[in-house]
């Protein structure tokens, strides 16, 4: 059993009467011939790494290799002014922690990439805490995100070098938005609707890492990825429908990625990286 776009995914889900997570698990099982138990056990290892990396830097903030980030997750948790409620505050802090762990040579799960690795764990772990969801639900959430991520990988790209940051953080937030909707009772069509909102919100976002490192602005882009996921999920859960269907939005992302000049696709030759301060920092880090 396989599906190659959102339309087929929804059709399969509706025919089988099951959510996206179950359809994705069936696909993995039938295509790889692995058992459900083995797949879920392996996914649990990924979930545990995610949980660990989401809190490590809140407890033990460490400066990154390049020195551009370190301590942000803890600062958010300790901030006297919290503009958001606990759900979003924690989700942002967790996403920042994952990026800090990543930038200090710690263990993370690329989801779908290392540069966007904070969004999915940040959103899902904070959601689980606030809505009292267990590991079984979290694994369903990850299965749901992977269906969206697979379609983005297959029909567009999740690489910053190909599609800019929209392909990385944009994809991660579309994946997370869809999972929120499933976990809070939305239909498969609602999930794809949320993913379409998420993609359309960050369409065109450039990949412009200072000094070419996965530090800044990658870390704060993961924070915006988290808020984008919740925004998109809220719109979908409220019954608002994006006029453009998911599959067309994926195609739009692919085309926008191709239209982005090389300077804005992970080469550190444009955007934040190319500001006078960005250039100075790069020279300082690499001792030139």
């Amino acid at each position, binding site marked *: 059993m396989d599906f190659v776009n959102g339309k087929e995914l929804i059709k399969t889900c509706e025919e089988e009467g099951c959510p996206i997570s179950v359809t994705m698990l069936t696909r993995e099982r039938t295509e790889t011939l692995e058992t459900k138990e083995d797949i879920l056990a392996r996914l649990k290892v990924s979930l545990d790494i995610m949980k660990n990396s989401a809190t490590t830097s809140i407890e033990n903030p460490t400066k990154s290799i390049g020195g551009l980030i370190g301590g942000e997750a803890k600062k958010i948790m300790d901030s006297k002014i919290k503009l958001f409620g606990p759900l979003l505050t924690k989700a942002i802090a967790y996403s920042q922690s994952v990026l800090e762990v990543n930038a200090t040579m710690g263990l*993370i799960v690329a989801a779908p990439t*290392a540069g966007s690795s904070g969004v999915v764990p940040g959103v899902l772990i904070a959601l689980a805490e606030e809505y009292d969801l267990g590991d079984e639900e979290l694994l369903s959430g990850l299965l749901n995100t992977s269906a969206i991520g697979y379609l983005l990988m297959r029909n567009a790209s999740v690489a910053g070098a190909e599609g800019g940051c929209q392909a990385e953080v944009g994809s991660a937030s579309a994946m997370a938005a869809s999972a929120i909707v499933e976990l809070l009772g939305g239909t498969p069509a609602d999930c794809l609707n949320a993913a379409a909102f998420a993609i359309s919100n960050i369409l065109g976002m450039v990949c412009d890492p200072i000094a070419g490192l996965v530090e800044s602005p990658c870390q704060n882009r993961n924070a915006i990825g988290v808020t984008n996921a919740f925004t998109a999920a809220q719109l979908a859960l409220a019954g608002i429908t994006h006029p453009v269907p998911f599959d067309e939005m994926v195609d739009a992302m692919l085309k926008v990625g191709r239209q982005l000049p090389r300077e804005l696709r992970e080469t550190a030759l444009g955007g934040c990286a190319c500001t006078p301060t960005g250039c100075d920092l790069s020279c300082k880090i690499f001792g030139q």
Partner: protein
Amino acid sequence: MEFISLFDVIGPNMIGPSSSHTAGAAAMSLLARKLFAPQKPKKVTFTLYGSFANTYKGHGTDKALLGGILGFEPDDERIRDSFKIADEMGMNYTFIEDHDTEVPHSNTADIFMDNGNGYTFSVRGVSVGGGKIKLTKFNGIDVEFTGEYSAIIVRQIDKPGVAAHITKCLADANVNIAFMDLFRESKGQTAYTIVHVDEHVSQLTVDNISEFRYIEEVKLVQV
């Protein structure tokens, strides 16, 4: 189109910060170490090209490369301390930045391994993105090897009968060949045959393959 698994989306599990510059670097040198086995590298020289040469310090590419040589997988947290661990083991390692040589792919490294007793082997590794890698040179000869499937690697003199001998040995052992490639620099000189196989290959089969006058060395990488 190649199958995209859920673990290609939620994964790889890796030591950061970069799938191409860190996880890929560890993966390529781990594969280099597997090819060097059973010899143990005592002295290793890494030559970095392209983006690896420019940004390796900020991505921990050096620690990841050394970690792979030490046998660490790309998700092994010891990678962070690989310099210290290599020092304790008395391993000698050098990193050379080559900013001048043009390489076809930006994230490229040459790995030269020496067992300290005169046996050496070198590979060129390329990190192709998402933590995936391929080796494109063995001892300076152009090859293509990803290490994703079990394989027998034969170093030979480019003379008639070698391929027939290898396939006969595998047929006798009831091992199916998935695919097979021959790489050579020039006619009659050193060449490599890479045979990807479906079944487990025994040491006896490897020894049988080695028993041929034009075959110089046989390596086995089991997945």
